[in-house]
């Protein structure tokens, strides 16, 4: 499993490098190669997850290795899906290296993250919590990344410092669509992750909520995204404000889910 993860990580890194070269050089085929490598990396990582079921005993998915790695996989798959409709292959230049870090570093050694307040428990609910939360984190990560690209592109266009610029980034509209789509899917997944987390806790201790740092930070993160979704779809927020919110929201959520555990 680890070998597959590390192979996928290496392919993601190569995808990022080729895509970056494709953006900077007059050779679009490099960018196309980067996207194909990203898809290959996702395939290899899929095999890595599938191989978990052949292990005996089947390892528990509720640890940092699988959480972060699964988030990266969800992010890569959602990006590949969005690429069918939008010209956003330039995002591979950032997603590739980030997916490499997210897959390779945890593969060096698993860190338990099971302190959601609930004790380790076998069954579908803990896994559903991990998978839904991780997928939500991955998609909101894509929203954050699209936000970073949006802010950079917006700044360039506003400042009119386009003379001599070589990087061909995706259009503002495409980046805004990525941001919106990732929020529309990622936020419900995060919400379901919180609900299944609460169900897991109730099944093990009879309580629906405990005041652990992981639970508090995640709840605040969820609240931020709920506010963002309202501002975006109900309050007429501009695309730039939405992009900035997505960046800030993801930084907070990543800290809540991963950073808090690492600091302990």
């Amino acid at each position: 499993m680890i070998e597959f993860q590390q192979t996928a990580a290496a392919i993601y890194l190569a995808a990022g490098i080729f895509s970056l070269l494709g953006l900077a050089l007059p050779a679009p085929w490099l960018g196309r190669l980067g996207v194909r490598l990203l898809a290959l990396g996702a395939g290899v990582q899929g095999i890595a997850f599938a191989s978990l079921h052949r292990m005996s005993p089947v390892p528990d998915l509720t640890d940092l290795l699988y959480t972060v790695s699964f988030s990266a996989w969800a992010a890569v798959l959602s990006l590949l899906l969005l690429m069918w409709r939008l010209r956003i292959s330039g995002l591979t230049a950032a997603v590739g290296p980030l997916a490499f870090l997210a897959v390779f570093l945890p593969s060096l050694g698993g860190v338990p993250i099971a302190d959601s307040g609930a004790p380790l428990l076998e069954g579908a609910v803990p896994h559903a919590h991990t998978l839904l939360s991780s997928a939500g984190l991955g998609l909101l990560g894509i929203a954050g990344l699209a936000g970073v690209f949006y802010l950079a592109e917006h700044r360039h266009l506003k400042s009119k410092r386009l003379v001599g610029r070589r990087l061909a980034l995706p259009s503002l509209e495409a980046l805004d669509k990525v941001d919106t789509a990732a929020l529309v899917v990622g936020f419900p997944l995060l919400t379901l992750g919180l609900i299944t987390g609460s169900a897991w806790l109730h099944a093990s201790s009879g309580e629906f909520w405990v005041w652990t740092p992981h639970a508090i930070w995640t709840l605040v993160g969820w609240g931020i995204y709920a506010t963002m979704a309202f501002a975006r779809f109900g309050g007429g927020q501009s695309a730039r404000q939405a992009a900035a919110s997505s960046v800030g929201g993801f930084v907070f959520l990543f800290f809540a889910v991963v950073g808090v555990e690492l600091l302990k």
Partner: protein
Amino acid sequence: MKIVLLGMNHRSAPVEIREHFAAEEMTLPEAVQDLAAEPEVSECVVISTCNRVEVVVATREPEGARAHLDDFFSRKLARGESLPGPGKLADYTYFHADEAAVSHVFRVASAIDSMVVGEPQILGQLKDAYRSSVEHGSCGPILSRLFQRAFATAKRVKNETQIAQRPVSVARVAVELARQIFEGLNDKKALMIGAGEMIEAALVALQREGLESLRVANRTRSRAEALAGRFGASAHDLDELDELLVDSDIVLSCIGGTGYSLDPRRVAKALKTRRNQPIFLIDIGVPRNIDPRVNDLDSAYLYDIDDLQEIAYSNAEERRREAVEAEKIVAEEQERLASWMVSLAAVPTIRHLRERVDTVRQQELERSLSKLALSDTQVEGVSALTRSIVNKILHHPLARLGAQTDREEGLAVVEEVRALFALDDSGAREGDGDPPE
């Protein structure tokens, strides 16, 4: 065989001279066939575009061909009054031979020699000229090879440099900027404020992009209607500006008068109604039509004529820098074609040498056989032996002749072999043979 070229372009002649020499589509094929029928002209291709008229010829006698080319320009192409006299034509034309002609054709195909460096149309025009010459039988193996290599050179230049990457006209710069804001333009609506020449030029560029709808708003409704009618757009009064602004993704303004026709308050109101969907505003009016503070609004991107021109100038400068890289590719490809031309020059010498030696072999064989009483099998054996000896002796010199790629050295070797074997005495000359593929 030599390649020569006589031409006139935007640098050598002003438009009032060039326009008298633009080739007429109807009469050109006949004129080209007449030129190709001249004994000094083996093959020819005529290139005629807005900015250039050039005739490329493959010939064994460059001087004789030059006379025919001058005649072709002054008698077949020239028309109208106030033409330059026969002696004056040279002031407006250029003549290239050998490497210079090859290099020129490669530079033209790669758009290095174009008025707008890197423009893509010239390659298509060159392909049309070549295709027409092939169809009319005036293009043979030499010029076919030249033009195929020219197309390959243009492809390399396009792929390996950024010569054609950046737009250099204000209209194209605006379209490229719109592409950085919007994912696609075919579902976008554009509003033109004004009905002058600049608006018309912008409408041409935007219509090519296939926008969902085009609207023209002007003080004088009749002028808006006249312009809109030509582009399938709708015409509006300036009073409707607020409503039009709400569902316009691209706004281009070039209208006379003092004061701004669009200010931040008006644009902000429209943005609020359209739920902050971005608007790309292009102000090409002088004095400016749109308050520059509009650019401070989050979802409004405003560019004025200076902004666009600065990008266009910078891109043109970038293309000129890329042209230096393109020249290196042209030089490499020119060298490759020159090697082929050298090997071509050796073909008749190789063939002639073979014929000369084989004639000697057969004469000596017949003389010897007449003195010997040999059976048919023995005659066949001796004949095969002599062929084998001749082939082995000739193998090295023929291989060396065929392998020459350096033009100077190659021609020297050909001359040496011709002198050693006295090949010039029997009349076969360079260029008589069929070219190798």
